[in-house]
């Protein structure tokens, strides 16, 4: 019992998180290469060599940082990614933690991520990192409502706040078809949570790296790792909320789940490379005035659909 309920889930989450983060880096390199960016080393070793270099680099400090928060923030972000992945079911029986309210827990991971990312930029006590941190809060507080609406939308037909029930409710038809607005909106949330691509307001180029502009060496490695891990966790949530999780013919459930996660990751990384960074002020307006009403529509659609 200990093995199946404690050791196996812990191993599973750690393994998927680490492997997934590595795959995110590989996939991103591959997409960059395919889009014509110059790449010398092979995509398979590039993340490893980059990681090795960061491990040998000295960790930077700033004049008067908030030490504890500064070092804790990357680790906590990684922990949040782990929680996010832990609630994702891989098969009807293989669920790391099957909480009754796992959908709400996923929402609180999003809220707590905002806190952690803010802390990462705030603690450095440097101008560019600070601007990145405050900018991220504007984004984080904007996408959270969209995420709530979209996730409530998938909870309606499942009559439950449990991811495993959400997946089970998609037996007949996947939510991606049943609620066509849901997945696109949720992908925006994913880009926001990991401040990736168009929503990279925190660590952007116009801030010389933003919240990460003052960190180097191992803390930066953990930060990058955590970002990639969060993408993996998000892809897990998206795959189970919209793509029918473990459901699928021929192959065993967990394999389907991993394939779907990879598909979500590929889409996210592609968007990250193709769309420019949104201007912060415009981003907030877009979130509240365009995407939030759209998520209303999604919820109403889901509600009507669930009753029919």
């Amino acid at each position, binding site marked *: 019992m200990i093995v199946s309920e404690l050791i196996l889930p812990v191993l599973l989450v750690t393994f998927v998180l680490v492997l997934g983060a590595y795959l995110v880096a590989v996939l991103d390199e591959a997409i960059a290469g395919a889009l014509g960016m110059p790449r010398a080393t092979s995509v398979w070793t590039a993340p490893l060599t980059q990681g090795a270099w960061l491990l040998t*680099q000295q960790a930077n400090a700033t004049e008067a940082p908030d030490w504890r928060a500064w070092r804790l923030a990357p680790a906590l972000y990684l922990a949040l990614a782990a929680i996010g992945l832990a609630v994702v079911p891989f098969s009807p029986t293989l669920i790391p933690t099957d909480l009754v309210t796992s959908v709400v827990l996923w929402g609180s991971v999003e809220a707590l991520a905002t806190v952690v990312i803010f802390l990462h930029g705030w603690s450095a006590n440097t101008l560019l990192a600070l601007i990145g941190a405050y900018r991220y809060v504007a984004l984080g507080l904007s996408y959270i409502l969209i995420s709530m609406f979209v996730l409530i939308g998938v909870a309606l037909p499942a009559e439950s706040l449990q991811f495993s029930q959400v997946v089970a409710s998609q037996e007949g038809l996947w939510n991606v078809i049943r609620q066509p607005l849901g997945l696109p909106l949720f992908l925006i949330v994913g880009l926001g949570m990991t401040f990736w691509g168009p929503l990279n307001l925190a660590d952007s180029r116009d801030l010389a790296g933003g919240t990460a502009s003052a960190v180097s060496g191992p803390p930066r490695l953990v930060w990058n790792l955590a970002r990639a891990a969060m993408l993996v966790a998000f892809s897990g949530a998206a795959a189970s909320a919209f793509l029918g999780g473990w459901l699928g013919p021929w192959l065993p459930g967990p394999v389907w789940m991993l394939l779907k996660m990879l598909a979500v990751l590929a889409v996210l990384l592609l968007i990250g490379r193709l769309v420019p960074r949104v201007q912060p002020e415009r981003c907030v307006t877009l979130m509240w005035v365009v995407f939030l009403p759209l998520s209303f529509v999604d919820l109403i659609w889901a509600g009507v659909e669930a009753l029919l």
Partner: protein
Amino acid sequence: MAVSWLSRLAAQATVPVFPVRGMHGEPVLHRLALAAGIELVDSPRHASILLVAGGVPPDQHDALRRVHDQLPTPFATLWYRSEPLDELAGATRVDDPDALPEALKTIHRELMSGKRGSSPRLLPDEPPNPWEGLGDDGHGGEGMMGGVPYGRPMAMNMTDDIRDGLTLDSLTVTLGPFLPMLPPGLTAEVTLQGDLIQSWTTHSAPYPIALESAFFQALQGPVPIAELERARARYHLKRLHFGLRLAGLERLALEALRLAFEPHPGQNRVMALRRRLVRSGFFRLTTTGRGRLDENQARRVGGIAARAAGLEEDWRSGDEGYRHLNFRPLTQREGDTAARWHQTLAEIEQALQLAGQAERDAVHTRRSDGVETPRGPWGEYRPEDASGVLEELLPGLEWDEAMSTLASLDLAPLSPWSLEETSEAPVPTSVEERRA
């Protein structure tokens, strides 16, 4: 054992280079941007090599020392067509742009394997102000705000905000000359309230930029319009590269740069680039209609900025040769950041179209009392530094808006030497290739 294994792996990493953009250092950085295995990073904390590309005037050596000392160990420096600082006399200097990527990779490998020591620290290890243990709790000074806690005073200059009038602290910093988002060489004292720029005082102008020799020849006598216009398109494509990279569109930025390196870029490829740019949402997502120049400011900046603000000013209209090609200056109305990028794209297309036409008919310029450079008209005077407009333009803008506005403006003065002359060191490649 484990450590040597780690450093062997690290030696194979993509080489992270923080470029200090000195005078006339841009061309080589454009080459590096296209080189494989090298990454130009934005923060010195993310780099293992400090590349000083081009000369740095002596009065900015202190700033250079500060940036140098901000790289975490182990790191090395490489000087491209630039005299190393006195303290770093033994540092590697490379003058050949073709040898640069390899040199960077070698240095990184040597650094990781321990063959090369880290560059020494140049500045004394002292806090900016001595830590003063005064007051009740051994902190900085009287009360909550005084003194210099941790060697720096606290921000406590209360000013009224220019947007909503809340009275909150403002933060005054000196930016540049090597901040990657600013034009190289530009230093400014900036007061920020939150992320909004309250005031901007330019301290030193951007470094002069060198044009290709075609523009200089046009001042001596007739030159083929095809050559002139291709040089113009190349110039703007390189500017576009910078703007797109800043906006997070690295792929299209490289596409623009590749076009700039082609000897005969096709007009249709520029049109395709523009279509992809519009489709990616560049104009809708990254600009908010701010950074608008009024007529006076637009005239002061000249060139693209002027025409984007609706001024139909172009030396080419007065040239017989251009008139023969039915040249008419293009303009935009808004004069803001988006309009300047629209104008840039339109002018690149126009330049390539003119070049194609002129090549067919072998048209030359007729006028030699002046030339329309990509930076603005060069008649009696060379286009000068226009960074003064920033003091009126940037206050009230949010940081991201300010940076994208800056990228869309071309403010640097023109160098009295051509691009070919500024590279005084012997160059192995042919002149034709160098021009690209």
